[in-house]
């Protein structure tokens, strides 16, 4: 199953689903009204994604089972690319299980662990945010995330 939109695409392995939407928060709409553009947000998950989610998965991560994982790929303003925060080049496709912790969660839920990284790819600035359903099973769940990240593509802005 292929997901494609706003210069992002992913071939989703068995058990995964996803969405690519535009950030329509008040702040984003205000910036867009001042000449900016709405930024895409991709959500990939191994569980049914509910409607009305936050960019970093609020409303969704609460529904995760221990065997589930959630991935958010959030784009930032184009001028942020290659700035110090986004200095890393390319989205990591291999993740270090030791970096995951409960303190990295945007929304602290017992048992879950998360990790985020900022990077620039194809001239676009992104944050990759990953939540694992079970902090006791990090190695297995990280492999699951890597499986989907392998086939995520980021195209240059047209």
């Amino acid at each position, binding site marked *: *199953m*292929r*997901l*494609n*939109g*706003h210069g992002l695409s992913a071939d*989703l392995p*068995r*058990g*995964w*689903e*996803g*969405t*690519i*939407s*535009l950030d*329509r928060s008040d702040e984003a709409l205000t910036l867009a009204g001042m000449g900016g553009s709405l930024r895409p947000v991709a959500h990939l998950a191994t569980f*049914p*994604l*509910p*409607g*009305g989610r936050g960019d970093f998965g609020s409303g969704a991560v609460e529904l995760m089972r221990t065997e589930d994982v959630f991935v958010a790929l959030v784009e930032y303003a184009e001028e942020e690319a290659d700035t110090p925060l986004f200095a890393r080049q390319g989205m990591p496709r291999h993740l270090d299980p030791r970096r995951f912790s409960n303190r990295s969660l945007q929304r602290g839920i017992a048992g879950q662990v998360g990790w985020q990284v900022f990077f620039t790819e194809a001239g676009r600035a992104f944050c990759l945010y990953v939540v694992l359903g079970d902090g006791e099973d990090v190695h297995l769940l990280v492999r699951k995330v890597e499986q989907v990240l392998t086939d995520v593509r980021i195209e240059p802005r047209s």
Partner: protein
Amino acid sequence: MTVVVVILAIVVVLLAVLVAGLLRSHAEILRQLHDLGAGMGGGATAPGPDPGVPATEVNRPRTDGRVPAPASGVPDGRRAVDIVGTGPRGESLAIRTIEVEHDTVLVFLSTGCTTCSTFWSDLQDPELPAGTRLVIVTRNPDEELPATVLDLAPAGSTVAMSTQAWDDLRVPGSPFVVHVHGPSGRVIGEGTAASWDQVLELFLRAGGDQRLGGGKASADARRERELDRVLLEAGIAPGDPSLYPATEDGGTDPADRSGG
């Protein structure tokens, strides 16, 4: 002469009415035979269950005749499809329905169809069994206005605009419901009725399937909410003495108040 012509005209009219009645009766018999699964000619039979699914897991297609019936030639228990499309806000969606643990109920709706109008509002509280996901599916944005879909869709619901899904699942019209069994990826029920409540009663709660056991609990909860509403409207709040049986001394029995 005039009398004869008039009499003949009356006879012709009566015969025409008789023939029309017979044709209508014939059509009704054919329709009912078709609904029962009888084939027409050549020894052909209606499609049987897909061998991949035990017959006991398949709900027969149902409709009350006022809304679209499943397309002919669609086998019971056929393979479902994942849903790929766009949302009414322009988002790209890839929704997994097969080879997952949860079941999915796909509700195919249109913004223009009269019967669909009650579905849009009833799906605010669909009362599906626990662990069952609801996805509303309309046709593509070039056939449905996304803004109208957004207005009609219940807040927080998942809406996919995907003509491909309509075609893949051979949806005959709207409203139409397809129930996908996640682990097997098979369609275990499809059909429709004039209201969402009828769909629940006739279709999703049919067959005594234990996986749908939440339906009764859900119906009980709905009845309880309705009773609460009626009592509150009558000014009877929780704890009101009139809710409890009177004791011999005219009061209420405290023991009865702690139960339940």
